[in-house]
């Protein structure tokens, strides 16, 4: 067995022979070149076998047209001929054949052939043709068609619909000879709309007011109240965060904190609450930094919005910065494609899309813009990089407040340092004293005799003891004194260590300048070449910056000199003529309210995705959305006031048979509450929820949570959420830090109930049912704490059992208790109380058990 290394040298001899033959004619091709191609290449590059990478080598036109990376042979030009580059194995990622390098004599044959003009008498076999994407043909697919504005179809049951939406749904049901099920009752509807819009269950007084309200606009009033509440933005911002890979940590490696990420989260909450038109929302997130602003606050918001492209799972520790950049651009493009277009773009990094009419040119057209707006920079820690930040402009008030903070911090540092100096001196004095005593001990006769420490104690007896050191007796009693002094010295050492950490911390976070992880154009915006097979070191043709052609209605506008093109991309996405943006957006909103999208693959509208169940309805909603100024609140308002949304989740056995997936919407889909909402709802019913949160999620102000803060090292500073702020136990989950790789503390609920892994972009969360969730519901102390607080509230408010039960059911389940349930609950309390005998406050404990039961039941963790 010879190694590759050694054989290669010997094989060079063969090259000489090949050179002797005439290379410029067809005979050379047929006798020398074709056998090599046949033996080495046809397996993957011929019409009889495979045409990998779009390249066929079984005809002249095959290599002339070339594959995904362009012509494979440039007659006469060795350096530009990809075939030669590949067989030379110069680049490990562009090496052919993949299994092993060709013998040197065969390489020499191919080189000679190309050099002498690449004679090739073969004509194309059959209709040999490069697989190309056909943009015009692609446009015929429904998702790339312009958004229409279909009129509502006629329906038989004219009394049922209250909105055009209902007519579209009913028409389909009638076609299938199905009927919508009965409406939900008021209690169910109120709990549903409250949870869907705000993520919080209705309060007892809200329930009572609503069921008594006979006004025709009772529902409208409720919806307007919910849409106007701060909780609305807190709920819907989180939906959007699921699409961004949002985390308060930068990447998965080493827990590097992303201490400014929360600004993007707060931007989102504000955007939803202020009903920022969706087109503007899109533009700001892609190119806010390039947009004009009316005010300082506006400007800060625009910059922060671009956090959309920054907050994902970023690899920041790769030593290969070229690859790191390419990977990051790739994740940004994937995000843009998925979130706004419902298209998978990631695979186009290496080749034209296999199914959808999206080509390498489309990918690198966008990649050029992102490469012109670099989003990371190298930092002086090992091989680490960091996300770029931009200083946010401040209003005079903000500036003043910030300067005050900084001044306070500076004062604090001075004070801490003074402490440090004072305590160091104190410690040194103590240490000197200890040393002095030790020296004394060494000279004492007992010490030298026994070889062990204490001197005096044997004679002093009861006078000794660490609690009664007598400084005055120090001369007489060096042993006990030394003990006390040593203890004090050690305490000081500890205190000084902590002090040093505090000073380091205060200095590290000295600047309070508001910053955001944000995009900005680089110094030299320019087009970029194709990275062949995604490899940043294998460059293909230059691609002008642009966007997805199949979804375009006109040529991409000229990008002004010295601009990245993000602004033009943003405008293209937010244009009413874009066939994808509005459709994808309304479908996402629909899915949040009805459980499934009209297009069930909410993140993928491509050829292999699902077709819309109600295409006309989807277009109706999309055009209505745009006509009404891209207002998300208006759209949500009309959807939750529709008759479709009012249906109950009751069964209809005929419909279940015909349409088991409820694609035609004959009933409402029940939904399990999201992880955050399970926790928030528990806090709400026990009246413990803190409702005025905002600002930094990471408790970074606590030095116990931050790792080493030295300015240089192998690894950058890190964060562990060891000590949450006390208030965080009661904050809405959206304000708690999103860690990568597991949660701890008050927000562990997310680890169990399908929270979106921040490495993923997910328009729809899975709803799993695993035993670890059940264990959580049965045994986690979160449940116990909330159940305890809920029991306290009920006991405090009502003194009599029936009234308590009424109150509990209304709070926890949003409806009155039934007589059957009343009986069950009473029996349960009676059964459980004797088991608690002997425990203090057994009666209260029985109520805690009952509260826990309700909170752990499906009635609580589902919305119907």
């Amino acid at each position, binding site marked *: *067995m010879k*190694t590759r*290394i*050694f054989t290669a040298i010997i094989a060079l001899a063969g090259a000489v022979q090949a050179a002797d033959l005439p290379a410029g004619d067809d005979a050379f091709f047929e006798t020398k070149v074709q056998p090599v191609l046949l033996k080495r290449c046809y397996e993957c590059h011929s019409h009889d076998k495979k045409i990998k990478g779009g390249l066929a080598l079984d005809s002249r036109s095959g290599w002339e047209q070339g594959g995904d990376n362009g012509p494979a042979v440039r007659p006469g030009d060795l350096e530009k001929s990809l075939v030669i580059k590949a067989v030379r194995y110069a680049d490990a*990622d562009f090496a052919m054949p993949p*299994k092993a390098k060709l013998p040197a004599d065969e390489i020499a044959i191919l080189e000679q052939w190309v050099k002498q003009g690449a004679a090739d008498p073969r004509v194309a076999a059959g209709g040999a043709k490069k697989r190309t994407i056909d943009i015009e043909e692609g446009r015929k697919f429904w998702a790339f068609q312009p958004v229409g504005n279909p009129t509502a179809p006629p329906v038989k049951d004219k009394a049922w619909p*209250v909105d055009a939406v209902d007519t579209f749904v009913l028409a389909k049901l009638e076609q299938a000879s199905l009927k919508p099920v*009965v409406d*939900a*009752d008021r*209690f169910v*509807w109120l709990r549903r709309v409250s949870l869907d819009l705000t993520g919080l269950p209705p309060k007892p007084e809200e329930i009572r007011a609503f069921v008594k309200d*006979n006004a025709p*606009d*009772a529902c409208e009033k409720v919806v307007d109240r919910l849409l106007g509440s701060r909780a609305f933005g807190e709920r819907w911002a989180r939906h959007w965060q699921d699409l961004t890979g949002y985390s308060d940590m930068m990447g*998965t490696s080493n827990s590097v904190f992303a201490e400014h990420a929360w600004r993007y989260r707060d931007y989102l909450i504000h955007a939803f609450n202020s009903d920022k038109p969706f087109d503007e929302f899109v533009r700001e997130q892609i190119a806010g930094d390039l947009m004009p602003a009316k005010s300082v606050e506006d400007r800060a918001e625009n910059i922060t919005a671009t956090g959309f492209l920054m907050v994902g799972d970023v690899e920041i520790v790769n030593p290969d910065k070229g690859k790191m950049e390419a*990977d990051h651009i790739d994740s940004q493009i994937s995000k843009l494609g998925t979130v706004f277009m419902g298209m998978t773009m990631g695979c186009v990094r290496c080749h034209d899309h296999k*199914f959808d009419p999206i080509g390498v040119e489309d990918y690198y057209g966008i990649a050029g813009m992102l490469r012109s707006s670099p989003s990371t920079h190298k930092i002086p820690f090992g091989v680490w990089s960091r996300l770029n930040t931009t200083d946010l402009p401040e209003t005079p008030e903000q500036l003043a407040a910030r300067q005050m903070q900084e001044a306070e911090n500076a004062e604090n540092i001075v004070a801490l340092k003074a402490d440090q100096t004072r305590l160091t001196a104190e410690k040194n004095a103590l240490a000197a004293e200890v040393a002095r005593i030790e020296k004394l001990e060494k000279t004492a006769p007992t010490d030298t005799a026994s070889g062990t420490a204490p001197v005096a104690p044997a004679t002093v007896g009861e006078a000794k003891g660490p609690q009664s050191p007598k400084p005055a007796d120090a001369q007489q009693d060096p042993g006990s004194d030394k003990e006390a002094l040593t203890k004090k010295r050690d305490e000081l050492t500890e205190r000084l260590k902590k002090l040093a950490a505090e000073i380091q911390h205060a200095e590290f976070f000295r600047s309070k300048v508001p910053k955001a992880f944000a995009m900005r154009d680089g110094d030299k915006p320019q087009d970029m070449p194709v990275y062949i097979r995604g490899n940043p070191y294998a460059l293909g043709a230059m691609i002008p910056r642009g966007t997805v052609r199949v979804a375009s209605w006109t040529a991409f506008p000229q990008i002004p000199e010295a601009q990245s093109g993000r602004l033009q991309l943003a405008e293209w996405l937010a244009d009413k003529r874009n066939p994808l943006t509005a459709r994808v957006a309304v479908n996402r909103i629909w899915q949040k309210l009805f459980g499934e999208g009209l297009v069930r693959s909410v993140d*993928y509208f*491509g050829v*292999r995705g*699902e077709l819309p169940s109600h295409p006309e309805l989807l277009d109706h909603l999309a055009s209505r959305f745009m006509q009404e100024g891209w207002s998300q609140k208006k759209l949500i308002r009309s959807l939750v006031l529709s*008759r479709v949304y009012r249906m109950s*989740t*009751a*069964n209809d056995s005929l419909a279940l048979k015909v349409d088991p997936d409820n694609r035609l919407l004959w009933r409402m889909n*029940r939904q399990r509450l999201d992880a955050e909402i399970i926790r928030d709802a528990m806090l709400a019913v026990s009246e413990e929820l803190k409702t005025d949160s905002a600002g930094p999620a990471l408790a970074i102000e606590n030095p116990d949570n931050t790792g080493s803060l030295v300015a240089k090292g192998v690894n950058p500073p890190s964060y562990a959420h060891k000590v949450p702020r006390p208030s965080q136990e009661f904050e809405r989950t959206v304000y708690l830090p999103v860690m990568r*790789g*597991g949660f701890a503390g008050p927000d*562990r609920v997310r680890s169990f109930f399908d929270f979106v892994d921040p490495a*993923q972009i997910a328009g729809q969360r*899975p*709803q*799993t049912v*695993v*035993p*670890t969730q*059940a*264990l959580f*519901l*049965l*045994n986690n*102390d979160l449940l116990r704490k909330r159940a305890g607080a809920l029991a306290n509230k009920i006991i405090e408010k009502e003194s009599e059992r029936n009234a308590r039960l009424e109150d509990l059911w209304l709070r926890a389940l949003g409806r009155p208790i*039934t*007589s*059957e*349930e009343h009986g*069950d609950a009473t029996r*349960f309390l009676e059964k459980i109380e004797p*088991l*608690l005998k002997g425990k203090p406050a057994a009666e209260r404990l029985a109520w805690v*058990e009952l509260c*826990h*039961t309700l909170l*752990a*039941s*499906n*009635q609580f963790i*589902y919305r*119907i």
Partner: protein
Amino acid sequence: MKPDFIQGLLATQRPVSRRQALSQAGFGIGGLALAGVLSDMGLTSAHAAAEGSPLASHASMQVGKAKRIIHLFMNGGPSQMDTFDPKPKLNEFHGKTLPAGKDLGKDKRLSGAALGSKFAFKKHGQSGIEISELFPNVARHADELCVIRSMFSDVPNHESALMMMNTGNLSLPRPSVGSWVLYGLGSENQSLPGFVVLCPGGLPVSQSANWRSAFLPGIYQGTHVDAKKSADPEQLIANLRNDFVLPDQQRKQLSYIQRLNEMHRQDRQGDSQLEARIQSMELAFRMQTEATDAFDVNREPESIRKLYGDSLQGRQMLMARRLVERGVRYVQVWHGAGQPWDSHNSIEESHRRLAGECDQPIAALLQDLKSRGMLEDTLVIWGGEFGRTPTAQMPLTPKVGRDHHSDGFSIWMAGGGVKAGHIHGATDEIGLGIAQGKVHVHDLHATILHLLGFDHEALTYRYAGRDFRLTDVFGKVVKDLLA
């Protein structure tokens, strides 16, 4: 229209319709649907609970020889030329610069002179498989092993290589092998998670991404258990223990939860998720006792505990056997948190220590499985995410080590239908590249699925409009590995 709606809402008397629904379903106190819930523990068999659950055990496409897998993951990347791939020629070159040594592999890692192995190799068993002195106990089972000396992966860095080995993709979030297997076969024990990950002392690099289910239903993801935390099973699994109420209180509470759940479900027929959640509540309740038993190695006879040894690795291996014995489909046993086998320096000491920790426990596992007749249908896989260079890591440290190397690393398999006492493939004389029988990680995955009875091209899951599979568009079953 609108006023009607309001009146209509008010007119819907919910309690009446609920009672009607319940009576239609024949439901009453102690009714049929609650029989399982309320029956005593002995009558609620794990099997009964499995029906209709996504974890229910089902057959593969063909009958596979392997029924379950124990994957011993030597994270960090053990050195092949110091363990299962002797390179005497490399020892001859020791200290000299190799012709291709300056620029090794795909990520162009700078490398130093050839570094011979410090460990002596010997032929073992009838098969005569050469194994180094690092694994004297595993070597006793040489005739059970199927050693692959020609593995390769795409990128020699930990994150990518771990993702490749565990999910078949370098970077995209894809389901792990264990998730695919569980999705394909279900679990034979409904009182335990079907895919258990033992990793002591914390998490490996890339953390739970190594055992995620990605787009497969979440029930198929691995459940991580840290065997280092404590020997007490109650400390091992989150929320396993209830600190607040006694078991009979909890049973009463659970019965009441289930009654509420049942009422809730009755109003919404045809909803399998609500059904599944009721079952998962019962499973969780059973897990409180079953898991306590399954994870408690102290319940083993002393002879067995002695066999495995009283150490962390011993405990892990024994736990793994207890789990597969109870029907858990896939157990992955990691050597430790981080990347313990990543011997960039002091390879002699560190490899000796690491092998010393797991050699006897692994040998015990093989022996124990064999004596129980379980080795024939349990596939044991040993290996890391890649191997190490035949050259010294640069820059040189006082005690040399080896860098990452993803071409031609060694793994072995045993049991579960693999060819026993067999060596597949070979690296070149110095262990720089593969000389014959290349096996890509995709090929390994295809082969593993084949052993379980699956065609790797046909075990697919539709997600985002595409049928995904573990091997993506790659992978070939390596026939030479099959018995």
